[in-house]
């Protein structure tokens, strides 16, 4: 499946060279990276964060400031920023992850609020509400990623690597431990899962992924403004996780794709975007609380299991 998708993505620009369309699919790639990380945290580990746009924003502004203002080369800057954001996530995570449910949601929301305000207010560094422009493009030597086709290959390579790494993670004992603690923290701990550490680690990982996506976002548009990193972006990301499927890596891709494309499809309703997102979320939660992909998958496995059972009972009866 990974190979198939990669091939499709390699060929895509050959058929579709409209820069606008590629711009949209590139945005999907960036969102997918954030949503993958967030899905590990929400879907697998069963926690909630309404503040991941903050890490996304810190990554974006971190890269913008280090490369735009201080002239650091973009690639090392990106790594440095990701590490710094990881440390911030650690400091935030250690106290905040003692909470759960509504309290955790409020705490992460508050964190997003603080970061957003800093981006707005500290205008000498961030450019304030009018944004930060003149961020250099990423480049390998003279080869600069400055048009949509080149960005397509760059962004989707990143996304596919992240997707693969996440797939590996959830298939490992670490991933099992996360799903276990999401379902029953006491039982998971009694079986040897270090639940506190596991939650902190996955929170940091998801923040680092959001930061990387933010850096890519900054270098890709060369202009960023605090608007992109407010609490509504955070909720949109949670919606992507929920719609694609809690605890489904492929669902993350689907959710990010669907919600990013939605405004394109419903052009006229642009102003009602938040209503539409909210409406979809409510519908999905009512009918498939595990999200589209995971919900359907669950239904299929249960049906299959029960079907087999019935077959066997019939065999036994005859």
């Amino acid at each position, binding site marked *: 499946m990974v190979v198939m998708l990669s091939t499709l993505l390699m060929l895509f620009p050959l058929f579709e060279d409209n820069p606008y369309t590629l711009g949209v699919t590139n945005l999907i790639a960036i969102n997918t990276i954030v949503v993958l990380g967030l899905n590990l945290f929400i879907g697998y580990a069963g926690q909630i964060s309404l503040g991941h746009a903050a890490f996304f924003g810190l990554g974006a502004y971190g890269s913008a400031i280090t490369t735009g203002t201080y002239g650091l080369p973009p690639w090392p800057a990106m790594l440095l920023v990701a590490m710094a954001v990881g440390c911030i996530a650690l400091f935030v995570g250690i106290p905040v992850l003692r909470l759960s449910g509504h309290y955790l949601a409020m705490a992460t929301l508050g964190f997003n609020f603080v970061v957003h305000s800093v981006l707005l207010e500290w205008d000498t560094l961030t450019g304030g509400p009018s944004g930060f422009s003149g961020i250099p493009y990423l480049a390998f030597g003279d080869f600069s990623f400055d048009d949509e086709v080149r960005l397509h290959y760059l962004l989707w390579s990143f996304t596919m690597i992240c997707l693969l790494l996440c797939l590996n993670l959830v298939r*490992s004992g670490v991933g099992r431990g996360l799903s276990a603690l999401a379902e029953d923290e006491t039982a998971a701990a*009694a*079986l040897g899962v270090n639940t506190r550490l596991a939650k902190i680690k996955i929170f940091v990982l998801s923040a680092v992924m959001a930061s990387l996506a933010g850096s890519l976002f900054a270098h890709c548009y060369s202009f960023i403004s605090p608007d992109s990193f407010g609490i509504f972006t955070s909720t949109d990301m949670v919606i992507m996780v929920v719609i694609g499927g809690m605890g489904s890596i492929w669902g993350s891709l689907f959710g990010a794709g669907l919600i990013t494309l939605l405004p394109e499809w419903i052009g006229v309703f642009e102003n009602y975007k938040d209503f539409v997102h909210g409406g979809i979320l409510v519908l999905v939660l009512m009918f498939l609380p595990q999200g589209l992909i995971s919900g359907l998958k669950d239904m299929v496995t249960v049906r299959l299991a029960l079907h087999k059972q019935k077959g066997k009972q019939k065999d036994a009866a005859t």
Partner: protein
Amino acid sequence: MLRLDHLCKNFGGLPALSDVSFTVPKGKVTALIGPNGAGKSTLINCITGVLPATSGSVLFKGHEIVNLASHKISALGISRTFQNLRLFPRLSVLDNVMTGLTCEGGHSMIMAMLRLPYLRHRERQLKLRSLEALDYFDLSDKIYWPAEILAYGDKKRVELARAIVGKPDLLLLDEPVAGLNGEETAAVGDQLKLLRRAGHTLMLVEHDMDLVMEIADQVVVLDSGRCIATGTADEVRRNPLVLEAYLGRMEATA
């Protein structure tokens, strides 16, 4: 193997365990009995770090484990089942059992993301061992089922499989046959006997006296949080304190 010393547990001032002391010898089966509300589950919860103890000590293989974090106690080799089933409902039966091998997974998140060959090899071994445990409990044909759709008896056995798959040094079972029918009880009883023969150290909470008489080497009786008797099954059965604890209860409810 396990030694409790003056273990106390209060729930908001109300004592659930007071001054409980006894030892669980290696390679033997200890049964913990007592009327409802005696504090048997609370005792197991305190030993495994699910609940913090108020005071006292628990020594396991020479380590003081009282109030240690659950996962550390598990890593030392104590494994348990719960009175009210605590499977991971949406995980498959196989994944449920493989979670019992968490302590042997021992690799970092970054290693897991890279899925190096040695990890894949280790993962395969863990899977094989889990399949073995499931086979032991006759669950081989349901390994990919989500645990939540299993029948009650199957769930009980998955929990047992999950507890023994890591070959723990000490196995604590909270009412392993509660709610099972006669046939299922006999099957689980046989499996427990096999475990004893294989040299496992067991402590089980059980109301089913026939099972207790059959497999327990040592019986510990709790009543209202106090340890009122210890000894072999026969000794305990003849102990007047024990008779009173049980009969007194019955008269009160009659």
